[in-house]
Each structure stands twice: as structure tokens, then as C-alpha cells.
């Protein structure tokens, strides 16, 4: 069954989102009314040149930043209405965020990094350790569990970050230029992980400016000047072979 061909309730529902930095004459309009919906199980790539507002959109989708105007429904919940502690809950339970700069906690082992969202979510003891190790295993790093971030390569660090994003089994995995700091080999590794995740039913939204990364997704959205410029489904004959090949 192909998730994309059987639309379910939208995980993401964004309506007329705007974001303005600064005030008055110095105001910068990063987003000028973005509307889009993403169904569960979809794999969306957002592309655009720098300054197109894609990072701003991503931060708002990840509840790391708040929009100036518009509505954002995440899994049916209006995020704009939530208080700080409920937002923390949303970030913890519904969203797994992968950063371009990995953002692992330094001097802390890989497994401890992966355990972090579970700890904040109140999962305890052996169950937490087991789930963290399972997530590391899913990204192929079970044997590096006790390594610190500075003992891992960039690709391995990013795979730890992906494990950390998916350990809570979130409704939505968001990735902000996940391959921007990686060489082509590590890029392939990360993309293979995303393919597998999507094949397992996870909803993935990533932003990138590398065309070959965008080509992996089922759906490609292009932003320009803070607005959706194009939104198209794409067939990728190479996608599954790329995923299975590794």
C-alpha cells in the first residue's frame, strides 16, 4: 500500500503563515502567506534559494519559533493557542527535529543523547535504554552507543541525531538541511535512513538546496520570496533501489 495514494488526516496543516523579523522600515518579511498540508506518511522536500524563507518555515513547523500571523495545526492541534509547557510537550511527543549542525550535547555518549527526549517525556530506566538502543540500531550505530560526539564522524553524528529524532516515535520528522554539512557518502547514508523511515510509515519533511536530496522525496515544494512557488508530486524510480541498496 502506498501511503501517498491514500490520503489520511493531515499531519501538518498550515494556513496563510507569515513571519516578519524586525519592525517598521527595517522589517523583513521572511514568510508572506504560506499554506500547505502534509498527509501522514508523506515524504516532502522543501527547496528554495537562501532567503526564500525555508528555514524560517521549518523552525515554525518544529515549534522552535512562532509565526507572526496565520494558523498552524499539527496533528489537528492549533499550536498557536498552546502555552509554553504544552509546546514543550508537542516538541517532545509529536516532532522529531534533525538539525543541519547535528546539535548533539557535547561530552555526552550517543545513547545518552538519544535517551534525552525520552527522559524529558518521562520514560524511565530500562525501557528508555532499550528504546534508545533500538533507535541507534535502526540507524546502524548500535556499536557506537557509548561513543561521545567528538569520537564520531559527521555522518555518524547526524545518524545519532536522526535516532534521537525518531526515538519518541513522533508523528512528524522534520529535517533542516540534514545533509548540508555532510560529504556525499554520509549524505547517501542519511537519505537511506530517511527512505527506510518513510517506508515504515513515518511522515518526513526536510529542507535542502541539493537537487539530488530533493529528488528522493515523493513531493517537492519550492519556496520563493516567502511564498510557495511550486508544489509537485514526483516519481522516483531510483528511490527504493537507493534505499534497498544499502
Amino acid at each position, binding site marked *: 500500500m502506498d501511503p501517498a495514494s491514500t490520503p489520511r488526516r493531515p499531519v501538518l496543516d498550515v494556513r496563510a503563515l507569515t513571519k516578519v523579523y524586525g519592525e517598521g522600515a527595517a522589517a523583513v518579511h521572511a514568510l508572506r502567506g504560506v499554506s500547505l498540508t502534509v498527509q501522514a506518511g508523506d515524504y516532502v522536500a522543501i527547496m528554495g534559494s537562501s532567503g526564500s524563507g525555508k528555514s524560517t518555515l521549518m523552525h515554525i513547523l518544529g515549534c*522552535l519559533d512562532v509565526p507572526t500571523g496565520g494558523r498552524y495545526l499539527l496533528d489537528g492541534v492549533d499550536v498557536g493557542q498552546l502555552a509554553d509547557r504544552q509546546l514543550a510537550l508537542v516538541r517532545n511527543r509529536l516532532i522529531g527535529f534533525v*538539525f543541519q549542525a547535528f546539535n548533539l550535547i557535547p561530552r555526552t555518549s550517543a545513547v545518552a543523547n538519544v535517551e534525552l527526549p525520552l527522559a*524529558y517525556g518521562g520514560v524511565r530506566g530500562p525501557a528508555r535504554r532499550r528504546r534508545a538502543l533500538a533507535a541507534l540500531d535502526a540507524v546502524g550505530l548500535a556499536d557506537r552507543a557509548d561513543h561521545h560526539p567528538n569520537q564520531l564522524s559527521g555522518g555518524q553524528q547526524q545518524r545519532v541525531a536522526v535516532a534521537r529524532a525518531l526515538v519518541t516515535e513522533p508523528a512528524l520528522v522534520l529535517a533542516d538541511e540534514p545533509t548540508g554539512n555532510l560529504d556525499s557518502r554520509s549524505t547517501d547514508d542519511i537519505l537511506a535512513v530517511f527512505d527506510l523511515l518513510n517506508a515504515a510509515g513515518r511522515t518526513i519533511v526536510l529542507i535542502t538546496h541539493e537537487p539530488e536530496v530533493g529528488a528522493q522525496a515523493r513531493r517537492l515544494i519550492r519556496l520563493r520570496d516567502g511564498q510557495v512557488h511550486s508544489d509537485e508530486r514526483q516519481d522516483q524510480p531510483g528511490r527504493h533501489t537507493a534505499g534497498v541498496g544499502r
Partner: protein
Amino acid sequence: MSLTETIRFALRGVAANKLRSALTMLGILIGVAAVILLVAVGNGSAQAITNRIEALGTNTLTITGANRTAGSGGLTVEVADALADPVLAPDVRSVSPLASVSTTLTYEGTDHEVGQFVGTRPSWFAAANSPLTDGAAFTADDEAQARRVLVVGRTVADELFPGTDPVGKQVRAGGALFTVVGVLAAKGSTGFQDANDIAVAPLSAVREVLTGYGALSSILVEAAAPDRVDAAQAQVSAILARRLPATGSGSAAYRIQNAAQLLQTQTETADTFTVLLGAVAAISLLVGGIGITNIMLVTVTERTREIGIRKALGARRRAVLTQFLIEATLLSLLGGALGVVTAVVGSQFTIVGIRPVIVPSSVVLALGVSVVIGLFFGGLPAARAARLRPIDALRYE
């Protein structure tokens, strides 16, 4: 997230940054230890002075010759006896003339240079507040017969007779043999002069053997009661004024020192000293506090990014804040406790001739100030960072 979980995170945070944690604790350690030790030194010197004067006895007057060139200003045994007059000086309990000299004691080839070799009367032991631990003091009869008997201080006993009982032994002083009859109880050491480096013999024997029959070194007058010291001083002055009239230049040939007055002046001096050291200590606490402030601010600023990551992963503001507060508390308390330990160990040593005496309130103050500074400047920036939107904390440089 439970509290034990947060504490575990805080411990991990402290352990993950070992050098920074060690430096933070070192800053607090030095601040706390400096304050406690400096105040202890000031307090120790004040106590040393008090001890020294209390060792003299607080209800005594000491009469010394003011004019060194003229012997001891004509203080003779006759003058001393005149002071023990129940009619003219009813508030005088006893009068002890002193002939004091520094000499070498020899016992079976062991020499000891005794600081004070004192010839006096038996009343001195009570007046000077010097009881005996072993043997007995010499008697008025010994004094009358000029018997060569000797009571030694603790230091002399330890130097000349290590491990043996001094009582009954014979020591040589100034060419004559003295029999040790008693040992004085150890007095609190004053730091400046060893009060236990003393030997006491009958006045007549000392004059015969060592000092000759010249003027006395001093006269120790014991008042009937501590509150009668001033009355006794007036009576003694009146007698002395008649016995030893002022010379042509108008200056008295003697000086009367009141132990209570001495205590007061010296205590004032010691208090000034303590205040001075306290000021230095306050400055070091301030500098230490600024050091703590600095490192705490740097730590939290540097970790704002980490706070952003934690918030992006779903950490509540309270969880982040609690973690950083526990880290700051841990560092402040550990550093402070180590500082107290350092100060306690340091106070066991004699510093510039003074045995420090720790003032408990300085421990509380130093520890309290450091911990409050640590908590405030560790907690405040952390609270600020925890309030930021995750993206602002992540972008913070």
C-alpha cells in the same frame, strides 16, 4: 521529568565539564578559605593577647622602674614590704617582689637557656595565676633561709628532663645547684613569648646567687578582688609617692601597670587588627564573588546553545532551570565545603607566629555569600536562557 532524573542530569553536566567545574570550585574554595583564615588569624592574635594578660592575672598591678639607667628606679625589697600595709593599703592582698634574669640551666650536660629566671616570694604563685602540676611551691621558710629550690615551667621541664620526673633533680644555675621541687602548670602559649619558659626560685636565693642585692626588676601587687584593683592602685601610688619622690625633672621613677588597663588597650589594638583583617577578607570575598559570577555567566552563556537543544527536544523550562540551579548549587556547595576544609586544615598551622582561631560566624558568612552568589549568577542567566524560544537559544553565540 522527576527530580532524581534532573539531579542525574546535573551531575552529568558537572562531570562532563571537569576542568570548568574544577575551576569554578577553585574560585569559590579560595574565596571561602581566605575569609575564614584571615578572620581566624585576627581572632587568634586577639585571643593571644587576652591569654597573655589573663596569664598575668587580671587583678594585679605591676610596678616597674621607669628609668632604666638608674637601675630599676630604686624598687627595693623595703619598698615592696612597705606596700603590704594593711592600714594604708587595705585593698592589697599580697606583694611579690621580683628579681628576674635570663640564665642558663644545666642538668647532666644538657643546657637550656631559660627566658625568665625569677626570684620571688611564695605569694607570686597565686598572684601570677600560676598553679603547679607536680611537686610543691617553695615556702616562706625556704625564702627566709635562702634555700636553693626551684620551680620550673613546662618548657624547661621538657627541655632538661625529657621523659623523667623533674622533681628532686638538681640543676646548675649561675654556679650554684638548685633542687627542683615543682613544675608549673602549662599556660596557654601566647605566640609572642613562651610563658612556660620560666624558672621560679626564692628571692633571697636568686639575689644571693645570680642578681646581687641591687634594685628589683618589678613588684607584683595582687588586689583583694578584681573590682578593688583601682582602689589598690591609688593606695599603692600614695605609698610609692612618699617612698620614692619624683626626681627634679618631675617624672616618676616607677610605673604602675594595671592588668585590666593593659588588657583594655591591648584588646583595642587587637580589635583594630581584626577589623583590618576583616576588611581584607571582605575584599577577597568580593573578588572571589566576582570570580564566581564571571565563570557562572560564561558557563551559562556558553551553554545557551545546549539549553536550546534541550528545549527543542521537549524539555520544559522548569526542567532546564532546575538542572542548571542544581549544577550551580553543587559547584557552590562543594567548592565552599572544600574551602571550609582548607581553612580548618590551614588554621592548624601557626601563621606569622599566631595560632588562628576560627570564628564560626565567618564560616557561615563566607559559605553563605559564596553559595548565594553562585546560585544567583548561575540561576539568573539560566532562567533567562530557559525563557528564550528554542531557536533564539540555538542561534545564541
